[in-house]
């Protein structure tokens, strides 16, 4: 027998190996199948309605025709304000937790709270938002209330992403700085943050994309079914894409088929574009980074 020729056992193992291989590949395909189906359905049924006019005009005829501009505009507003509220807060909290806080019961409790905050259902956040921002702080149903509710909901994402990217900066860099007499803040400012910024931004963009699609938290706090005018300040109500989609697909009679699909398509496109930016960004920065 040849020393290196294939034995029966080899053959059997190879068969099993290829079986599992195809099995796992099928699982993977199964995974992306829904995405493909959703996207193609949306494009097939709603693609025809998409046009510059659709994006830039108001809905008319009891929201059965016209465009989606106020909803688009409102979503951008809400997301922007939510970001302005949550990013500084989240990044600061993450810096404190990973750079300053000692490993004690207090820090562990806070970390636990953050993890739990991430698990709170969005409808509960919505009710909290109503109680806290709409009523207690008296912001009324407004962009501000909606954005703050979203901000609190997405805070854990920002904190966790920031913490992870801070922790990915090797401790050796910090020690190098401390040993030259840098304070913690000087170290953070000059060495840690510049090297963590890619991860932080990725987290932020992910948060944006999540925020864009949320419906429940803004429904009771600031988003309106239909408004004949655009919001003038953060204290106004506004229309929003996610809620608009809900409304035209379930609440309004005689809506042409293509309309809800069109709205959904725009919404999903917004999310996908932002996710792609986030991924491209991460790849770019990761390619540049080297240690």
């Amino acid at each position: 027998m040849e020393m290196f020729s294939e034995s029966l056992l080899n053959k059997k193992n190879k068969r099993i190996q290829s079986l599992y291989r195809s099995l796992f590949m099928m699982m993977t395909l199964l995974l992306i199948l829904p995405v493909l189906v959703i996207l193609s359905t949306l494009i097939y049924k709603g693609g025809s309605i998409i046009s510059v006019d659709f994006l830039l005009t108001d809905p008319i005829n009891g929201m059965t025709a016209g465009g989606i501009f106020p909803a688009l505009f409102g979503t951008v507003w809400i997301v922007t304000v939510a970001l302005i509220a949550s990013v500084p807060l989240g990044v600061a909290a993450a810096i404190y937790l990973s750079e300053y806080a000692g490993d004690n019961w207090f820090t562990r409790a806070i970390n636990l709270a953050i993890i739990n905050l991430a698990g709170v259902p969005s409808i509960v956040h919505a009710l909290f938002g109503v109680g806290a921002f709409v009523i207690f702080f008296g912001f009324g149903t407004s962009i501000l209330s909606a954005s703050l509710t979203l901000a609190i909901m997405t805070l854990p994402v920002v904190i966790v992403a920031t913490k992870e990217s801070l922790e990915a900066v090797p401790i050796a860099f910090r020690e190098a700085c401390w040993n030259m007499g840098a304070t913690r803040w000087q170290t953070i400012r000059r060495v840690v943050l510049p090297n963590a910024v890619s991860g932080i931004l990725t987290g932020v963009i992910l948060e944006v994309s999540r925020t864009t699609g949320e419906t429940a938290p803004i429904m009771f706090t600031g988003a309106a079914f239909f408004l004949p005018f655009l919001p003038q300040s953060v204290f106004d109500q506004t229309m929003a894409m996610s809620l608009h989609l809900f409304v035209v697909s379930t609440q309004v009679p005689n809506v042409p088929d293509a309309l809800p699909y069109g709205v959904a398509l725009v919404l999903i496109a917004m999310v996908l574009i932002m996710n792609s930016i986030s991924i491209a960004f991460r790849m770019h920065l990761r390619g540049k980074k080297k240690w």
Partner: protein
Amino acid sequence: MNTATAEKLETPAAELAIRTQKLDLWYGTFQALFQVDLDIKNGIITSLIGPSGCGKSTFLRSVNRINERLGYVRIEGTIDVFDKNIYDADVELVQLRKQIGMVFQRPNPLPASIRDNILYGHRLHYTGKRLSRSDQDDIVEDALRQVLLWDKVKDRLHRKAIDLSLEEQQKLCIARLLPVQPQILLMDEPCSALDPKGTEAVEELIWELRGKYTILIVTHNMAQARRASEECIFMLMGKVVEHTATEDLFVTPKHQETANYIEGRYG
């Protein structure tokens, strides 16, 4: 040659750079140092040898108080640096660390250019009016010359420090300590990540720095300790066994443990 650096602190006349008395150190409940009494002379190279885990790094890291980062470290006894107890309330950590530079096992250049690495410490501590570019260039050149690196990197000062060879990185890590004019350099196995050629080059450099700084170097390499230090400390399980002139320690060790260790390594 370098007018730009901050006022040069006159080297303290103290005879001892570091003196510890009855130093005990615990990591949580684990005691890593026992009653360490050491007098490390000013201006010479002292090497610290001993088997892995005997507390060499721990000792080094107590001298610049970097151990404090770990909340669970506790110390008893005293550590004096230039006759000043570094745990006194009026000791400013930043000033202490400025006087005591540290070099690590693995070279840890900052993720920045060679030039910025050198200037980092200076920028941290310099309070005068903004330096001109040429003054900064002087600082960079001076530091790199001291570590015998200038000729090699003078044409690529703006390149990433991380692209240098390990040996060059380690030299750079030494160089970047110099602009803040430390009195003491602590080196924790500075050659252990380097190949023999790099080791030799860094050793040569350390020898070159003799007289300008008080150097305390931890090493695994007996030959290195012997070649490159004037006094030598042998530690075992958190205790100091022997501390004498290097030549004496290697030729006529007073303690059996020292002899065993030295022979074991030579065999």
